[in-house]
């Protein structure tokens, strides 16, 4: 890949991947997408695999799969708890990739983006992780604690390996900084709609509209909006202006509600979560009708 291609922030360096194809299809349909987040291995690999495999059928257009970490510094209580459940259930980076591989055998179109923190990947080994991830069917990465200042660590190697590196922009990313944040990003831009952690406050619609508009002036990449979207109505509001709405904590909380005292999924828990995802998808699909 040539250096100028990486540096041009208006062009997706991975233009032929599943993520680009999915956003092109959504555009053709004239609607926004739903990005559903679940934590890998929450509460165990079997339950998570069933949930993951059911997400496209429930209307998730893209999937964010959380790689659990002991110290999720940007996450609120719901995703913290879900990470600890997954780790207690024995989830690892290798087993996370295994979930993706099994999913990919049945679904070759729905993009999967791994979301998490750098240390488990650093520990696994960046080159090995990218090779194994690509092979398993991973399309992109969102790594919370890797700002552009640390691009050499994973972002550049990922782009070279053909794995998208999706960058987070936030209400604190000012105009001076935005070009640096958009450079080397790939797949889509993830707009974090509040200054804060996941699953807590929600931003005002007007603020989200203005932020998406501003990002659109700086990039041709799709813009997804996340943090604080909990209901089909909120998802619909976001879907009116953004290219995708991300829902994480609300889905993870729904799963937690379906666990028994021992932390095992009660019968029907997965179906209940998928039913909730279906309502979110309906919200998103009806937004621009």
């Amino acid at each position, binding site marked *: 890949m040539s250096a100028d291609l990486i540096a041009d922030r208006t062009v997706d360096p991975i233009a032929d991947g599943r993520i680009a194809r999915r956003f092109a299809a959504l555009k053709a349909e004239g609607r926004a997408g739903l990005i559903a987040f679940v934590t890998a291995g929450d509460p165990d690999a079997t339950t998570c695999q069933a949930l993951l495999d059911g997400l496209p059928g429930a209307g998730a257009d893209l999937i964010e799969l959380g790689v659990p*970490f*002991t*110290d*999720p*510094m*940007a996450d*609120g*209580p719901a995703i*913290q708890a879900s990470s*600890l459940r997954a*780790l207690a259930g024995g989830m*690892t*980076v*290798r087993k996370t990739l295994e979930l993706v591989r099994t999913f990919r055998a049945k679904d070759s179109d729905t993009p999967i983006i791994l979301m998490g*923190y*750098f*240390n*488990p*990947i*650093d*520990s*696994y080994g960046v080159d090995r992780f990218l090779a194994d991830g690509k092979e398993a069917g991973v399309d992109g990465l969102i790594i*919370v*604690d*890797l*700002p*552009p*200042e*640390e691009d050499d660590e994973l972002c550049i190697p990922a782009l070279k390996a053909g794995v998208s590196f999706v*960058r*987070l*922009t*936030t*209400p*604190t*990313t*000012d105009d001076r*900084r935005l070009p640096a*944040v958009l450079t080397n990003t790939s797949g889509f831009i993830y707009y*974090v709609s509040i*200054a*804060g*952690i996941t699953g*807590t*406050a929600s931003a005002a619609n007007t603020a989200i509209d203005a932020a998406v508009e501003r990002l659109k002036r700086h990039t041709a990449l799709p813009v997804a909006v996340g943090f604080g979207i909990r209901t089909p109505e909120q998802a619909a509001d976001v879907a009116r202006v953004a290219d995708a709405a991300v829902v994480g904590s609300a889905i993870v909380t729904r799963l937690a509600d379906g666990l028994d005292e021992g932390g095992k999924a009660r019968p029907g828990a997965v179906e209940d979560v998928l039913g909730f995802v279906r309502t979110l998808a309906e919200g998103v699909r009806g937004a621009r009708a």
Partner: protein
Amino acid sequence: MSRPNTYRSGPDERGHFGIYGGRFVAETLMPLILDVEKAYREARADPAFEGEMRQQLKQYVGRPNPLYHAERLTELLGGAKIYFKREELNHTGAHKINNCVGQILLARRMGKTRIIAETGAGQHGVATATVCALYNMPCVIYMGETDIARQAPNVFRMKLLGAEVRAVTSGAKTLKDAMNEALRDWVTNVADTFYIIGTAAGPHPYPAMVRDFQSVIGKEVRAQMQELEGRLPDSLVACVGGGSNAIGLFHDFLDEPTVGMVAVEAAGRGIEKGPLDHAASINGGRPGVLHGNRTYLLQDEDGQILEGHSISAGLDYPGVGPEHSWLHDVGRVEYSAATDQEALDAFQLCARTEGIIPALESAHGLAEVIKRAPTLPKDHLMVLCLSGRGDKDIFSVAQHLGVSL
């Protein structure tokens, strides 16, 4: 690894000491981190900032504190001539206040109106609450629920000083979780809040900034030793958790080839027992990324952070400052370790021979002095950083000795 021309030039402009350090934080914090860096650079170049800091360290903290010849201990051990740098005589009883004075002056300079901090044993929390009272700033201290139970007197002290102590119930409920929670608060309140990090770790510029504020320790030792003995010390010893007192003592001497340096990690129940039984990140961990920096960490084979153990709540952290990781790799500083039992023995010996009850953290450094001094000649000048006083530890020591108070 080739020997650098100087050990004092780090970090580079991206905050790296060799491969360690950096700025591994969420995008929301990044603009603020860059602001802190810029404000700190400007403050250092401003004589008024330096002047106010010097004034407060003298009038409020009580610096310079003595470099004290521990005569009875020297005699008892029968080798090196032992000096204590008496950081425990500072206001609030530990070296932590040196850094808090610097950071709160910077926070004010930046126009921030709210302070947050993490604390393990409570020493940094008390020091932060103290400077917040002094400068009339609202202050929230994050402290793990487990530590709150272990350190009740310091919790009450912080409250008396007007701070709000928030119990952290996530994760293992100790220092690393308190730091996670402080980072979560910061990300939510970026506009008005300054995070006073207590040790020489975290995202750049914190490791360099905390080191600079603590390096007053080593600068005083240099001047005091010159006055007392007319020369440089031969060796320096300090305990290391995150490592702020150690880097504060060492930094001024790093380019003096005749000065040896030993940093003492907490070996807990024994490093050989595995990473759940100690808090020795360098001796028993491997490099990784946590809390904004790359450094040696206690972690499992999958990169999950492990909860270390030490009798001392102030050393009970699964990481270490990034400059220490680098100083270890280049071989400039020796990193050894002392067990809970060795620290307990040193704690009691110090009380009986010198009439000083040291913090359990500092007792780890003293344990190394006890091992090393007898093997050295009488003209060897050894300095221990007595980083804190042990009043806060009497309850846990009593418990370990089977005494009920």
